[in-house]
């Protein structure tokens, strides 16, 4: 991931973080399962992959391990 590296001659890189979100260069539009479209114009957007986020589709760090 190269935040801020926005040249569109090269493919947009998406990075999957182990046990974490998917990082995509912003801005992005995400169409949800029910058809609603949400947008984020952040330089990098963290998209939830664990479906635990209270801010879905954005990551809110709910994927983190909890201590016992």
């Amino acid at each position, binding site marked *: 991931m190269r935040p*801020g590296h926005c040249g569109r001659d090269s493919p947009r890189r998406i990075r999957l973080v182990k046990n974490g979100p998917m990082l995509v260069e912003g801005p992005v539009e995400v169409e949800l399962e029910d058809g609603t479209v949400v947008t984020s114009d952040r*330089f990098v957007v963290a998209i939830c992959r664990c479906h635990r986020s209270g801010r879905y589709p954005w990551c*809110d760090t709910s994927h983190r391990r909890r*201590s016992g």
Partner: protein
Amino acid sequence: MTERASAHTPRLPQPRGPVSAAVIEALHRPCPGAALAATAAARDDPFGEDGPLGEDPQLSLYVCYELHYRGFRGVDPGWEWDPELLRLRGVLERSFHQELLRGVAGGDDLEGELSTLLVEPKTPGGVSHFLATEGNWPQMREYFTHRSLYQLKEADPQAWVIPRLTGQAKASLVAVEYDEFGGGRGERVHAELFADLMAAAGLDAGYGHYLDNAPATTLAPVNLMSYLGLHRGRRGALVGHFAAAEISNPPNSKRMVHALERLGAAEACRHFYLEHVDADAVHEQVMRHEVLGGLLAAEPQLKQDAVFGIQATELLERRFADHLLRAWLSGGTSLRVPLSG
């Protein structure tokens, strides 16, 4: 157009002991002034019984550092580079640093430090847990008041490190800072969002307005950022500190959102913390992998400093939280000077 409260230049604070009295008294005069360093540095015990984290040294440091940000109303800007004042600041900084070293575990286990931060404790502890479950609105306003000393200059101390970085670490840190500074939109600057929060909570949004109310435990974490930011030699620690802060922010901010919903707070108050859930979930990844990773790839010898930055941040944040919770659980105010009205 009226000037926003966040653009105000603060007044000099009230002194809290002999060292801050000497500093503040000097700043009332034109620069250069008398040999003030001699006054404080020559004392056998310049910090009194509370040591380097006490009220007098922490306020003195805070005032010295503020000269590099916005300064104080009516104070000669020349004081920023006055050699006598810088000498005194150096004395205070060295003892502050020594005190922090005494309080942290040290070492160079960066991965270990980061993984500890990345685990959510099941047993609730901190201030955001308290506010989310049992805190009341006056305590919430006290929390805002404490945090205003940093939050109204959010991400400013970290900007000092930019010229000391290169390549990917620099590019990524600047991208995070760009986000902190509103992505090119003045009204979205995080410090401005905090000013909106203050106003919505019926508090004064003026930059540095509540300095006299804030105890040393509140000033110390802000002084740490200024200290690490202003010294090139501390760039490893500054980056470690910044990563630690961004890692801790999303869960804390989530709990703050719950707390504010429970207390029926205004939308501007919620918005500040919601923004920090979304933004810092991104920033933590970029800070860890690109900035910290990039810096240590270029300068591996800075690992121990990065660990120090993380540990010192955690140490001072824990002291801050302990102070607030102790005060609130005993039914008192956590502020040095209670809010009026």
